[in-house]
């Protein structure tokens, strides 16, 4: 068993080396496919970041009448936090709202002065509510319309931003769905391209496979080296594609000049940073995809010639 296995591995490497041109072509095509594949991963990460960034910007605020007792506001907050749709509720008391306003306009003496002249605090207490998903705001809005609550509430700003939220919400789910579909289709294409390359390589060896069978080689012994070749090609493709990705990413600031880095488009997120931090994971994904597709393709493609 061990002799057979070591011979299979030996032949896998030897064939890979001797079929130099074919092996190079296979690696080239697999590298391109893997770059598409890793491009998809990065695109998904970027859209995820963009979407969650947008999602985070959405909230609804409930402004309470000045007559509403703070205890009631706090109990409404607790009740809201109990809702399954609600991610977080932040209470901003009228004092705090005033503080924030003052801090924001500290450099604007006219405004501070007019506030002082007003004497009383013009701000209302409010709750900032964030939901898990944008399409849940409608429900929260409904909840706030309950009779027991309406008496304390001055206004809910959902109505004003409703169309914006709905548009964004459908946009986000659209982007997510399109991204998923695109990922599936392109992954499939990349997989098929690799499969076809492997199939052609093995097709050119079909006579050899027949000869091996005729001199008494078992199916495992015939198929094994092709699987090893697939494994080697997958490994090299993953390495090359990862290196290519690093080089490309390194070029990004140079291409867009220094001023327009990717951080401008997506605050708090940098492509380079993400790739450098996750390079090992990205390499692993490509390795699994490349080696997996190549070996499965070899397995299927050889099977056809192992029947007689």
């Amino acid at each position: 068993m061990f002799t057979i296995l070591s011979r299979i591995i030996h032949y896998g490497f030897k064939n890979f080396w001797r079929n130099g041109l074919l092996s190079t072509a296979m690696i080239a095509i697999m590298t391109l496919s893997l770059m598409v594949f890793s491009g998809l991963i990065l695109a998904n990460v970027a859209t995820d970041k963009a979407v969650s960034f947008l999602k985070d910007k959405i909230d609804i605020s409930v402004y309470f009448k000045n007559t509403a007792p703070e205890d009631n506001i706090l109990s409404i907050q607790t009740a809201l936090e109990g809702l399954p749709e609600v991610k977080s509720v932040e209470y901003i008391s009228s004092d705090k709202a005033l503080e924030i306003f003052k801090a924001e306009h500290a450099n604007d003496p006219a405004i501070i002065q007019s506030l002082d002249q007003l004497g009383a605090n013009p701000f209302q207490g409010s709750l900032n509510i964030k939901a898990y998903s944008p399409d849940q705001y409608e429900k929260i809005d409904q909840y706030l319309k309950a009779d027991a609550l309406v008496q304390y509430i001055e206004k809910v700003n959902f109505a004003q931003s409703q169309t914006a939220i709905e548009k964004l919400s459908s946009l986000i789910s659209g982007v997510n769905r399109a991204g998923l579909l695109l990922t599936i289709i392109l992954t499939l294409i990349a997989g098929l391209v690799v499969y076809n390359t492997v199939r052609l390589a093995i097709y050119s060896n079909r006579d050899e496979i027949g000869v091996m069978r005729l001199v008494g080689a078992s199916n495992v012994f015939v198929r094994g080296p092709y699987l090893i070749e697939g494994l080697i090609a997958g490994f090299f493709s993953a390495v090359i594609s990862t290196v290519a990705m690093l080089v490309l990413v390194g070029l990004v600031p140079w291409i867009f000049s220094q001023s327009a880095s990717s951080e401008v488009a997506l605050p708090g997120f940098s492509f380079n940073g993400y790739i450098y931090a996750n390079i090992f994971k990205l390499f692993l994904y490509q390795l699994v995809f490349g080696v997996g597709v190549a070996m499965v393709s070899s397995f299927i493609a050889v099977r056809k010639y192992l029947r007689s």
Partner: protein
Amino acid sequence: MIVFQSVSKLYNGSAPALEDITFKVDPGEFVCLVGKSGSGKTTIIKLLTGEEKPSKGRVFFGQYEVNKLGSKELPPFRRHVGVVFQDFKLLPMKNTYENVAFALEAAGRSQEEIKELVPQVLDMVGLSDKLANFPHELSGGEKQRVAIARAMVHRPEVIIADEPTGNLDPFNTWEIINLLQKINQLGTTLILATHDKEIVNNLDRRVVTLDRGRIIRDEERGKYILV
């Protein structure tokens, strides 16, 4: 040792390739299978190596009933049979030594055995100086000698040669035929399919003549006679 029992073979739709073939080959015999192209020589060989299954009848080889072997049992069975083809069927990416060694490696033989046996057989076919050459660097006669070395390296009980001289000039033809005779003299059964009249008449061995899928003549010390 080899027995064909009322064997018929039909390929889809066309006239039968073999019809009701019955014959026997004893150990150590040298049998010529003769007949025109399409008379069924190659079909008999394919049935014997298990490449094809008979439509009717049974094929025995020693303790094996060849027509019943599944794709798992075929590889070990084939190590008892050495086959030589008209088109050599060498592995183009392997050199002379590796082509011969491959048959032993596939059978799981040890590296020591391989290192001992392969040079021995290659010496016997006169190719000791071409171990590292690839098939495309060899002449037709040399290629066929590599193929014969490969066929005999695991000492099979029978060697089947399907038109082994079809692609060779007269000089190389006789080299190959003499080599096959030598192998037969050492005790290996030999089945030679050919349509070369001169070879058959000069060999003066058993001749089984086929015509349109039937055996029309089976003579000890026969001649090449069609019709």
